[in-house]
């Protein structure tokens, strides 16, 4: 897959404060989570990629285009949903989304058509003629998402899209993010504090800490790797059974009298383990895939 974002020794300084420190890496995922504690530099990274802050040194490329020199053509291909409330005063949702579409280069009639479609898509169809000032927080978030996607961008930056949402609104927002991801028409950069939200939507995660990259994890690969680790609790297991597991092609470690930790090789299925256990008169009482959750990955990165 072609890289979406390439970070090339990207550094951002505000006065004497260094916010991002020589970031280096390549992001390729369909939906890329941006994680980190407060002040880690997530929002600054997004703002820099959007061209709001010029890099102090280094650069970044989006779809192969340099943010220093090709900002305008990059912006034509991206959408941005800011974290804070951001609206044009005294406008209805359809008026607002249409204006944003026209500013992105859509002709007036096309922008109006897309504004209606987008508002229906995000679930604000019935409320599209209401003024934004009368919207609830959840509706405002959806309106912000609508303005970010009205022009059909190839890359969408979502800065804390589930902030302050009640459970149904959060569920709806995450559904929309997954739908856009699965459409295959756009990549998403999803900044959030909520690990569960990121885990539900993202296939790649960039973890920042103190302005540096603490980890860049491809969640799908990580999940595949996790499938190889198995924790097994047995009754009646003998050293002979462990040896036979080894003969089958598993690496094992005994933890406790009846507990085994296994790394199974390609081509070995779980049913092979059950079959072997049956042959040796061993009961498998519990069998878990040991899975590194995003929380584990995040906590490791923070160490």
């Amino acid at each position, binding site marked *: 897959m072609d890289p979406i974002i390439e970070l090339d020794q990207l550094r951002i300084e*505000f*006065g*004497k*404060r260094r916010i991002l420190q020589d970031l280096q890496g390549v992001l390729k995922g369909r939906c890329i989570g941006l994680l980190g504690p407060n002040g880690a530099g997530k929002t600054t990274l997004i*703002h820099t990629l*959007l*061209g*709001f*802050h010029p890099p102090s040194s280094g650069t970044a490329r989006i779809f192969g285009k340099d943010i220093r020199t090709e900002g*305008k*053509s990059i*912006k*034509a291909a*991206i*959408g*941005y949903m*800011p974290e*804070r*409330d*951001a*609206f*044009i*005063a*005294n406008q209805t949702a359809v*008026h607002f989304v249409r*204006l*944003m579409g*026209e*500013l*992105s*280069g*859509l*002709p007036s009639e*096309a922008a109006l058509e*897309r504004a*209606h*479609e*987008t508002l*229906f*898509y995000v679930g604000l*169809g019935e409320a599209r003629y209401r003024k934004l000032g009368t919207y609830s927080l959840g509706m405002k978030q959806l309106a912000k998402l609508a*303005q970010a*996607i009205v*022009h*059909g*961008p*190839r890359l969408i*930056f979502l800065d804390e899209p589930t902030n302050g949402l009640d459970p149904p609104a959060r569920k709806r927002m995450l559904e929309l993010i997954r*739908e*856009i991801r699965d*459409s295959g*028409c*756009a990549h998403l950069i999803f900044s959030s504090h909520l690990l569960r939200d990121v885990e539900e939507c993202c296939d790649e995660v960039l973890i920042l800490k103190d302005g540096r990259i603490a980890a860049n994890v491809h969640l799908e690969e990580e999940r595949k790797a996790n499938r190889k680790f198995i924790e097994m609790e047995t009754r009646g297991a003998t050293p002979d059974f462990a040896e036979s597991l080894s003969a089958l092609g598993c690496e094992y470690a005994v933890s406790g009298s009846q507990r085994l930790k296994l790394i199974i090789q390609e081509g070995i299925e779980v049913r092979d383990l059950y079959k072997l256990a049956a042959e040796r008169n061993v009961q498998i009482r519990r069998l878990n895939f040991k899975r590194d959750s995003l929380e584990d990955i995040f906590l490791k990165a923070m160490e």
Partner: protein
Amino acid sequence: MAVYEHNYKPYEGVLTAGWSRFLVIPRYVYQDLFKYKLFIALFVLCFVCPLVYTILIYLHHNTSALTFFGISSADVVPINGFFFKVFTTIQTSLAFIFTVIIGPVLISRDLANNALPLYLSRPFSRWEYIFGKLSVLLILLSVITWVPGLLLFLFQSYLEGGSWMINNFWIARGIFMISLVWAVSLGLLALAFSAWIKWRTAASAALFAIFIIPTPIGFAIQAILGTTKGHLLNLGMAFNVMADEFFRTVNSEDYIFSLGEAWMVFLVYGLVCLYMLWRKVRAYEVISS
């Protein structure tokens, strides 16, 4: 992505030209403004003076009408530089009122609603944003000032003959230049105050103050230091000097400063306003300490 098809699709149609996108801003502002009856009434009122001037020019060339009203041709207002200067002064005063009404909220509302990141995350630069906002005032003030002024000039040329037009072309230049300088200056001042002053009333007061306060300061500097250079702060005076020069009328300010200095005053004010706008018009405020 029709309304009944709930899926995400990219836009694959044609795009507008990048250079023309700043015009989206005035179009949306006018849509809002012309919803208000009071604004429409005020806008219509701005064309009363051009109507009166049209009648005056018509009467000037219609001897039968003059005879009907019992007016001798000697009593008719002469159509010259002074005639058009008075017209331009009236219309520019109305332009000031419009600026006071519209200008103070043009940027302050966007700042209050955090709208700048939405504009600037699109293929739309800070300069395009500023120029888009400026064009709201430039277009409106042009419609009030130099457009009717030049139409009057053409009407007079039509009635008087082509040679009058050629001999008095400097009047047309004066109408256009004075109105344009005034519109640009007012526009930049209004935007700069709008960007820096959140409260509408205070921004409107600042617009008045910028024309009133420099007068006593200029005279105070003249009285204390014995120099007239203090008047260089006075935009109104610079405007009068320019108008007198362009319309070839008597200088009401007794040439306290020259035309070159008047240009300089406008230039300096303009540059200061642009700097103020450049500092404030950003997606996000950066605290660098």
